[in-house]
C-alpha cells in the first residue's frame, strides 16, 4: 500500500504539472482539493482518466470521485479494492 501511495503522489505531480510540489510535501491524508493541494475540477477529470488508464478502473458515476479523491489514503484504498 505504501508503494502505491508513493506511486500516486508521483503520478499526480507529473500529470497535473505540479512543478513546485515534491512527494514529501503531500501527506497521505492531505485533502487533494480545496485547501489542501488545491486541485480543481479539471484535475478531477485528469484523475478519472488516470484511474482508467493506469489501473483499469472506470468510474461509472463521476460523483463517486468526490470521496475517492479526498486524499492519497482514500485513492489508494479505492484502487487496492477495485484494481482490475
Amino acid at each position, binding site marked *: 500500500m505504501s508503494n502505491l501511495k508513493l506511486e500516486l503522489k508521483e503520478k499526480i505531480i507529473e500529470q497535473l*504539472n505540479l512543478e*513546485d510540489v515534491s512527494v514529501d510535501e503531500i501527506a497521505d491524508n492531505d485533502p487533494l482539493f480545496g485547501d489542501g493541494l488545491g486541485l480543481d475540477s479539471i484535475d478531477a*477529470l485528469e484523475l478519472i482518466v488516470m484511474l*482508467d488508464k493506469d489501473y483499469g478502473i472506470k468510474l461509472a458515476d463521476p460523483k463517486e470521485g468526490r470521496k475517492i479523491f479526498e486524499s492519497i489514503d482514500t485513492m489508494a484504498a479505492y484502487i487496492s479494492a477495485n484494481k482490475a
Partner: protein
Amino acid sequence: MKKEVYINSIGSVSVQKTFDSTQFLEDIVTYNDTTLKVVDPNYKEYIPPAAARRMAKGIKMSAVSSKNAMKEAGLQNVDAIIVGTGLGCLGDSEKFVSDIIKNDEQYLTPTRFIQSSHNTVAGSIALDMGCKGYNFTYVNTSISFESSLWDAKLQLQANEATHILVGGVDEMVDHHVDTHRFIGHVKDKPVAMEEVLSSHTKGAVIGEGSHFFVLSNKKGKSTYSKLTALNIYNTLKKENIAEVITGFLKDNHLLLKDIDGVILGNNGDIEYDHFYTDLCSSIFENTPQLVFKHLSGEFDTATGFGFWLANKIFKTGIVPEIVKLNDKNITEPKRLLLYNQYRGRNHSLVLLEKC
C-alpha cells in the same frame, strides 16, 4: 480627422534578455545552433504557480511581456487586445494529438485541449486583466503581427478605442521544427550567431518570442514613437519591391532620403535573402541598414522583435553595433522603416516616427 497612433510602451520575451527593459542588447546571448529558445524570465514573479502549471510556453511568455507593457503604460485595462500568432499554442496541440495516438484514442484528458487553440493567449490576457473589450487573434503566418498592428491602427485612428494592447507571439515546438527541418526551412547544421546572416546556406535558424505594445491615440509619459504607416503585401514580384517601397514612402509624402534607417528581416537563408540584399545595393545603398533576426531567430511574429528594436532605438537614441549591417550611422533617428518578408511571400512595411 484621423487621430495619431502612438506606441506608449513595450514588453518583450525573446532569445535575448529583452524582458529586462532597463537593458538594450548590452549582454548578447550568443549561440551555435539551428533552433533558439527564449531566455526565460522568472515566471513566478508574474504568474501565480497554480495558474502557470497549465499554461503553454506562449501564454507564459505573453503574460510577462503584456504585463510589462501594461505596467510601463501605467494602465490597468485597455479597450482592446489584439494578438498576432502564426502557430498559437501549437505545443499543447501537438501533445494533445500525440496523446490521442499514444493512447489509441482511448484516454483524452482536457488540459492539453483547453489551451491548444490559437486565441488562447489573447483570451488568457483578457481574463487576467478583466478586459471585456474587443479581443481578436490574427493567424496570418509571417504577417500575423503586422495584421494586429493594422487593426489597432485603424481603430485608434477612428477613435473607436483609446488604448489597445497589441502583441505577437510564437513558441517553438519540436514536431513543427522537425517538419520544417525536413522540408529545408531550418538550417541543417548549427550556425554561430555572428555567422548566420552570411552563412550562404538554405533555411533559417528558428526562434521564438513574445512582444507586446500598448498603442494609444494619446501620447503618454513613456511614448516611444508614432506608427505613421504600414502595409502588407501577400505577394509581390521581386522586381517590383523597390518601386512598392518608394511608392509607400511617396504615399506618406516622404522620399528615401527622409528615412534615417531601414530595419530588414534578413535571416541568412541563401534562397530568399536576396530580397533584402538587392534593396541594400539599390534603393537603400545610402541608408543605414539594420538587422535583427540573427538575435531573435526566425518565426512568424519575429517582426515583433524588429518593432521592439526600432522603438528602443527611438527611446535611447542608441543603435547597438550588433544590429548594424552597413557602415552608415544613424545620427538622430527620426524615421525608421521596417521591411520584412518570409520565403518571398507576405511582405510588410512599417513606418515609425519619433515624436
